[in-house]
């Protein structure tokens, strides 16, 4: 049980700045997930928390104490690696017992602690096997067991499931949720799979280019992203973005024009900054519908590019005359016919506005 604060942490390798001014506060017992595209600095941040990577600037506080200069082994953090990093010449038991052996714990204590971790992870029958004789999922469990045995204050996971197949990944995800419930320990988890992030996280931290873009609950980020990057990164299929001009601004509504060429849209909005002339609309697929005909000005004409029919849901990919791609989610019925021309209608309640710099423009 430990809380963690990261204050003004930056990191560069030579001239390359990998992390910039990271500030983050993690409460005790929280399950925090770092997500972001490859190379955005997630692993680096995690490794700085573990102490494997130095944190030359800023502070990392664990339970209130600054740990920047504390040896990784003494911080009370345990890490599970993407490649499992199991010692190939040791049995599962010896792997899990390694930290205790290094600490010269008595044999009985080692046996008891490893036994307990093995029971939690249902590994009892596999303890005599070497990593080469274990399946991917079993290896991952041993790696987690090795972390549990150390009774750490914080668990760190670096893409622990990315080497598993989809089915096993779903299963291990469920097991991790149970494990977290059982142990109640603070866990920090890195992934670039946003579905994994959404299902696991109490708190989700979205990173890009070495900067924390936004953090909060998964649904909080889904519904109310701070910027275009977060909006686009979370959710599958991606949020649609359409450029538009601001035609008229009133106190509690604005009118947008030139959507997809020539459509108009009336949006309820308070205190819009009248200086902004151009915006970008973000609309998730579920907030767009196929309309019957071009009846009103808020309906956009589009061309069906292709259709993904998944049974329960259908994604209709359409191209606007401006060349923008608009994906429509339709769960009502299977796609009707193969008409290449269609009409789409945006739901104003689901439209988010972004400035040309990518920042969100919120209604006050």
């Amino acid at each position: 049980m430990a809380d963690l604060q990261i204050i003004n942490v930056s990191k560069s390798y030579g001239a390359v700045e990998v992390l910039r001014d990271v500030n983050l506060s993690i409460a005790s017992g929280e399950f925090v997930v770092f997500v972001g595209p490859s190379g955005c600095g997630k692993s680096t941040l995690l490794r700085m928390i573990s102490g494997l990577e130095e944190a030359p600037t800023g502070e990392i506080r664990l339970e209130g104490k600054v740990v920047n200069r504390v040896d990784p082994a003494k911080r009370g953090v345990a890490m599970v690696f993407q490649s499992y990093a199991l010692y190939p010449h040791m049995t599962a038991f010896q792997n899990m017992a390694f930290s205790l052996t290094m600490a010269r714990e008595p044999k009985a204590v080692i046996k008891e602690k490893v036994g307990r971790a093995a029971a939690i992870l249902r590994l009892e029958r596999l303890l005599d096997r070497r990593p080469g004789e274990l399946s991917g999922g079993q290896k991952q469990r041993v790696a987690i067991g090795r972390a549990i045995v150390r009774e750490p204050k914080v668990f760190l996971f670096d893409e622990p499931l990315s080497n598993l197949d989809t089915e096993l990944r779903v299963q291990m995800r469920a097991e991790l949720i149970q494990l977290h419930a059982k142990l109640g320990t603070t866990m920090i988890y890195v992934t670039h799979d946003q579905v994994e992030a959404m299902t696991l996280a109490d708190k989700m931290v979205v990173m890009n280019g070495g900067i924390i873009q936004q953090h909060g609950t998964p649904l909080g980020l889904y519904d109310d992203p701070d910027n275009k990057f977060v909006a686009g990164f979370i959710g599958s299929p991606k949020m649609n973005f359409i450029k538009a001009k601001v035609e008229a601004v009133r106190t509690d509504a604005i009118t947008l024009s030139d959507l997809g060429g020539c459509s108009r849209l009336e949006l309820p909005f308070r205190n819009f900054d009248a200086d902004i002339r151009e915006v970008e609309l973000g609309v998730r697929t579920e907030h767009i519908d196929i309309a019957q005909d071009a009846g009103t000005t808020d309906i956009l004409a589009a061309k069906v590019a292709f259709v993904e029919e998944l049974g329960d849901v259908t994604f209709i990919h359409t191209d606007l005359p401006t060349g923008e791609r608009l994906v429509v989610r339709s769960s009502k019925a299977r796609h009707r016919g193969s008409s290449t021309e269609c009409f789409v209608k945006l739901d104003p309640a689901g439209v988010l506005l972004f400035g040309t710099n990518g920042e969100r423009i919120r209604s006050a």
Partner: protein
Amino acid sequence: MTTDVGLIRTAAPGYALDLSIWTVLKWTVAICVAVVAVFPIIWMINVVFAEPGVPVSINPRLLPTSLSAGIAKIDTILSETSYLHAYYISITYSLLTIAGVLLIGSMAAFEFALFEFPGKRPMFVIVMLSLMVPTAVTLIPTYLLTANLGWLNTMQGLVVPGLASAFGLFMLIQFMRTIPREMIEAARLDGASHFQIYRHIALPMSKNALVTLAILIFMQTWGNFIWPLIVAPSPQMYTVGQVVGLFNAPFSHVTVDIVMAANLLAALPPLIFFLLFQRKIVEGIAMSGSKG
């Protein structure tokens, strides 16, 4: 399509005939080469295990004729010369060299392969450049240094100058590079000290490379002729190689069969080693060759 079938049908018997001629030829050549390769060794064995006074070369036989005569000759050599002592020296020399090279080589390889530290690049480059320097150039100055240290005719004089083996280091570095960085980091998080990581992770994981290197060093020290010749010229420190050299000297007044018995005794350890570890030896050489 029909023409195709016809072609195959007519071509097949000729091809099969071709194949069998090729096979016969190949086996003949292989067996001849094999005979040439092992003949001197078999001849040596034949000369030893034959009644004395009948030079085998005059009456070539394929198989040894007298086990007891051979044993008697070996017994003569072991009891009437200091061959056993030379054996002891050679074995000690080999074992100490192996232990030393493996220990200090693996320690240095561990650092060079897996960590960064100041001066690493230049040190590494210098050591690797030394692989290009012929032994001829260092031989005499090293001998003089060893002499100045008062190590002539001592075991340390034989062993210590050969311990910093750049070849051994290179081979171990190549191998240890394949240890994933995450493995080292996991051990570090598990509370292992730097030395413990070396001892409990890197060493056991490099077992194969260490064994291969040990075998290669054994072959090399056992066959090393020139260094013992100059640094340990006293009969007290004769290695097997030197003793064999004496037996073979032109005016040694020893009969062929006794000489061959001495040679056989010298050949035995590497031959046995080879029979036991042939895969490792061959692969070790192939590895160091195709990567070097």
